[in-house]
C-alpha cells in the first residue's frame, strides 16, 4: 500500500467539493427529463398519451415525477381529441404524447381536426434514433413529412441542445396568432442522451410574430360603415372563443351598444348568449331561417373571427350580394380568401372588438335608428316562421323526435345547473345529432361547446368529453352522439372507467348514418346505399362491459327519467335514446345553393321537386 501525503487527499477532497458545488449548474439531465421540465415550465398539468418503444424514456421520466399527470387513452386519435376538449374548455394548450410510426399516424386525424378548428395542441411523437432515420427502421414513419400539412408547424429535434428551445417555441407557436397543433418529433437517442436545459425565452420569436393590435385607420373605417348601416348583421366565429373571455365580453358590449342582429357559426356558439333576443341563432347550412336571410339581405356585415367557410356562405356568388363587409381575423390568410371584403382588420378579436366599442362611442354620427327598427321588423317576420319547430307526440309509447330529446336534455341540464350549480359542457360526434345539438341546445357561455367543425370528424365527441372532464372534474360532461359515430372511438369507455370519469354519452340512435341518409334522400333519389346501421351493439350491455351504466329510452314517456337518471349517476353512462329513424335536419341550404334557397322542413310544407331538394343544381351536386 502506498503512502500518500495529506496534500494528495486534500486535493481530492477539494476537487470533489468543487464538482459538488458546480453540480447544480452543469449537470445535464436526460433529454426526457429536460422535456418534462420544459413542459412543466410551460404550465402543462396533463398529458394524454399512449406508450411505445420510441417514447419509453419519456414514460420512464413520467414515472419518476408527480408534477404532470398522464392520462392513458386507448387510441392515439382519442389522445388528440381529448387534448382538444381540454384545450377548448380551458383556453390552454393541450398536450399529447404518442410513440413513433403507428402512434404518430394514428394521431394524424386529431391533428388535422385541431388544425381546421384552430385548437392549440402540442403533440410529442417518438421517433427512431437519429442514426436510423431514413432506414425504414421498425416503427419508423416520416412523421414531420406526414404531419407537415396536418399541423400549424412541426419540428424534428436532431440535436440535444435544441430540445428545450424547441419545446418552448412549440408552445408559443401553438397558442399565438391563430392557434393550432404543433408536432415535436423526438428521436429516441435525443430522449436518452444528456441535454442542457434553457428557460422560456424572453425575446420574441425570430420570425413568427402575429399582429394582434388593430390598425386605428381600419377601425375608423369600420365604425363609419357600421354607423351608416341600415340593415346590419354581426357574424361571429370560433375566433372570438379562442380570443378568450375579454373578447366575448367586448362582443356582448358591442352588440348591446349597437342593437345589431347577431348570428354565429357552429364554432362560435356560446360567445354571445343564445337566449338573448338580439341573437338570431346559428347560420349556415343548418342555420336558422332568420340568421341566413339576415345574412343574405344585410347591407353591412361585421365578421368577427369567422372565415366565410363554405358551410356558411353557400353558393359564393350569391352570398350576401348587397353588403359591404368588415372582417376581423388574426390570420391575414383568412381575409379575402373566399369572399372579398372592404375593411379587413387583422387583429386579435379582443383588441379589435374593444377598439370598435370605443370608436363607436367616440364617433358623433348617429346610427339610422328608424331603418334599424324596420330591419328588425323584417327579421321578426322571418323569426316568426319558427323554422326549428317540430311536432312531438306526447302519447304514451310515442316515438321520440331527436329534436325533442335535445330540447329536454337542455331543459333538464338547466334545471340541474340551477339546483346544484353544476356546469354543463357539451361535445358532439358528427352528423344530424350534431346539428340538432347546435340548434336546440342553447349556450350562454363560451368554452362549453366542443364539436368538430372544420373537419367533421366522427369519433371526436367521446374523447373530447373525456378531456373536458379531466379539466373540469365537477362538471357535467355530455357527448351528444350518433349510434354510428360513437363506435369510432368507443374504446375510450375504458379510459373513462380507469380514471373514474363520469362522462355521459347521450346517443340519438336513429339506426342510420342519419346525415348520410338525409343527403341520399334529398340528393340521390332515396337510394340508401350503405347508410343503415346494421348489427348495432346492445349499448346498454356495452356500457356495462366497460364498467359504466347503460340506460335506454324507447318512447317519449321514458325520456325525462332517463335524462335525470343519467345526470344523477356518478359513473360513466351510455344513454341510448331511440329516436325517429327518418327525421331530417332542417332548415337546410343544400351545397351550392344560396341562402335564400333554404329548404324548410315538412312542418313548413316543403316538398322535394323531381325527387331533389329545392335550390339544388348539378353544380351543387359535386360539392360536399
Amino acid at each position, binding site marked *: 500500500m502506498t503512502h500518500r501525503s495529506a496534500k494528495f487527499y486534500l486535493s481530492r477532497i477539494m476537487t470533489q467539493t468543487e464538482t459538488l458545488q458546480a453540480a447544480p449548474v452543469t449537470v445535464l439531465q436526460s433529454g426526457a427529463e429536460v422535456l418534462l421540465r420544459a413542459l412543466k415550465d410551460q404550465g402543462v398539468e396533463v398529458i394524454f398519451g399512449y406508450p411505445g418503444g420510441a417514447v419509453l424514456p419519456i414514460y420512464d421520466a413520467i414515472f419518476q415525477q408527480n408534477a404532470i399527470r398522464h392520462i392513458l387513452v386507448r387510441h392515439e386519435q382519442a389522445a388528440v381529441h381529448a387534448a382538444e376538449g381540454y384545450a377548448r374548455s380551458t383556453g390552454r394548450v393541450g398536450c399529447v404524447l404518442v410513440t413513433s410510426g403507428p402512434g404518430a399516424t394514428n394521431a394524424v386525424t386529431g391533428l388535422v381536426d385541431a388544425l381546421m378548428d384552430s385548437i392549440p395542441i402540442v403533440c410529442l411523437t417518438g421517433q427512431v434514433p437519429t442514426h436510423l432515420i431514413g432506414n425504414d427502421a421498425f416503427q419508423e414513419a416520416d412523421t414531420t413529412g406526414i404531419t407537415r400539412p396536418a399541423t400549424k408547424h412541426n419540428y424534428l429535434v436532431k440535436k440535444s441542445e435544441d430540445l428545450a428551445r424547441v419545446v418552448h417555441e412549440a408552445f408559443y407557436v401553438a397558442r399565438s396568432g391563430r392557434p393550432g397543433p404543433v408536432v415535436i418529433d423526438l428521436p429516441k437517442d435525443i430522449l436518452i442522451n444528456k441535454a442542457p436545459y434553457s428557460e422560456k425565452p424572453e425575446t420574441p420569436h425570430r420570425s413568427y410574430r*402575429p399582429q394582434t393590435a388593430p390598425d386605428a385607420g381600419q377601425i375608423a373605417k369600420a365604425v363609419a360603415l357600421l354607423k351608416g348601416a341600415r340593415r346590419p348583421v354581426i357574424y361571429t366565429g370560433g375566433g372570438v372563443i379562442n380570443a378568450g373571455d375579454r373578447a366575448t365580453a367586448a362582443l356582448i358590449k358591442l352588440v348591446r351598444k349597437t342593437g345589431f342582429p347577431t348570428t354565429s357559426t357552429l364554432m362560435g356558439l356560446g360567445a354571445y348568449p343564445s337566449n338573448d333576443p338580439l341573437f338570431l341563432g346559428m347560420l349556415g347550412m343548418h342555420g336558422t331561417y332568420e340568421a341566413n336571410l339576415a345574412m343574405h339581405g344585410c347591407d353591412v356585415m361585421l365578421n368577427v373571427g369567422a372565415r366565410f367557410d363554405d358551410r356558411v356562405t353557400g353558393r359564393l356568388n350569391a352570398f350576401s350580394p348587397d353588403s359591404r363587409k368588415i372582417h376581423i381575423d388574426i390570420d*391575414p390568410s383568412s381575409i379575402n380568401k373566399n369572399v372579398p*371584403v372592404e375593411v379587413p382588420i387583422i387583429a386579435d378579436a379582443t383588441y379589435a372588438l374593444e377598439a370598435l366599442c370605443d370608436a363607436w362611442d367616440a364617433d358623433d354620427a348617429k346610427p339610422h335608428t328608424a331603418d334599424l327598427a324596420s330591419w328588425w321588423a323584417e327579421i321578426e317576420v322571418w323569426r316568426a316562421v319558427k323554422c326549428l319547430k317540430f311536432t312531438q307526440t306526447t302519447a304514451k309509447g310515442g316515438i321520440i323526435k331527436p329534436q325533442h330529446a335535445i330540447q329536454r336534455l337542455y331543459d333538464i341540464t338547466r334545471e340541474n345547473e340551477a339546483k346544484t350549480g353544476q356546469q354543463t359542457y357539451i361535445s358532439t360526434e358528427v352528423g344530424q345529432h350534431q346539428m340538432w345539438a347546435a340548434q336546440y341546445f342553447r349556450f350562454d357561455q363560451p368554452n362549453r361547446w366542443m364539436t368538430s367543425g372544420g373537419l367533421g370528424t366522427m369519433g371526436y365527441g367521446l374523447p373530447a368529453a373525456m378531456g373536458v372532464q379531466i379539466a373540469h372534474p365537477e362538471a357535467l360532461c355530455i357527448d351528444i352522439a350518433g349510434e354510428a359515430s360513437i363506435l369510432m372511438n368507443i374504446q375510450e369507455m375504458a379510459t373513462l372507467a380507469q380514471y373514474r370519469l363520469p362522462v355521459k354519452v347521450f346517443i340519438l340512435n336513429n339506426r342510420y348514418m342519419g346525415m348520410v341518409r338525409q343527403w341520399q334522400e334529398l340528393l340521390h333519389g332515396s337510394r340508401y346505399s350503405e347508410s343503415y346501421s346494421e348489427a348495432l351493439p346492445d349499448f346498454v350491455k356495452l356500457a356495462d362491459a366497460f364498467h359504466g351504466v347503460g340506460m335506454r329510452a324507447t318512447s317519449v314517456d321514458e325520456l325525462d327519467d332517463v335524462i335525470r337518471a343519467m345526470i344523477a349517476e356518478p359513473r360513466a353512462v351510455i344513454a341510448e335514446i331511440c329516436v325517429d329513424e327518418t327525421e331530417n335536419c332542417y332548415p337546410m341550404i343544400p351545397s351550392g345553393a344560396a341562402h335564400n334557397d333554404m329548404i324548410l322542413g315538412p312542418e313548413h310544407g316543403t316538398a322535394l321537386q323531381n325527387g331533389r331538394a329545392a335550390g339544388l343544381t348539378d353544380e351543387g351536386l359535386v360539392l360536399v
Partner: protein
Amino acid sequence: MAYPPDLTVRSATIAVLVENEAGVLARVIGLFSGRGYNIDSLTVAPVEGDGGRSRINIVTSGTPMVIEQIKSQLDRLVPVHRVSDLTQDGPHIAREMALVKVIGAGNHRAEALRLADAFRARVVDATTESFVFEMTGQTEKIDAFVDLMRPLGLAEVSRTGVAAIARGKRII
C-alpha cells in the same frame, strides 16, 4: 384589396426570406401544391453564412385575390421572416441563367453560333459536334433563344429559375 375584386390573372415574382432550417422548402412547395397555386419558377439558396437565412424567389400567377392569398399563406409559415411581392412593390430586376446544349454540324452549327453571339450567350463547352451555351437574362429572352435553337439541334436545356431583386435602395 380593390373592391369589387379584379379577376384578371397576372404574373407575380415573390421574394421570401426564410429561416434556413430543415423542411422549409418542403413547407413552401407543399403550400403551393396543397392549395393548387401555380409555380412557374422557384429558386432557393442561403443568403447569409452560418445557417442564417435563405431566400426563395417564386414566380407564380393568379388573380390579385389569389396572389394576395399566396403572400399571406407564405407569411404565416412559422420560419418565414418576410414576403415581398416584387412585381407589386415597385420596379425590380429578374434574371435567370441557362445552359443550352446544341448538337449538330455544318450550317446549323454556324447559325447557332451567330445567334448565340447576337443574344450574348457564351460558349462554355465545345466539341466538333456540340456546343454548350451559357446565357443570363430575363425569362422571355431565354425562352426566345431556346426557341431559336430548336431547329438548329437543340438537345438539352438546364435553367436556374428566376433570381429577382428590387431596383434602387429598396430591400426586402
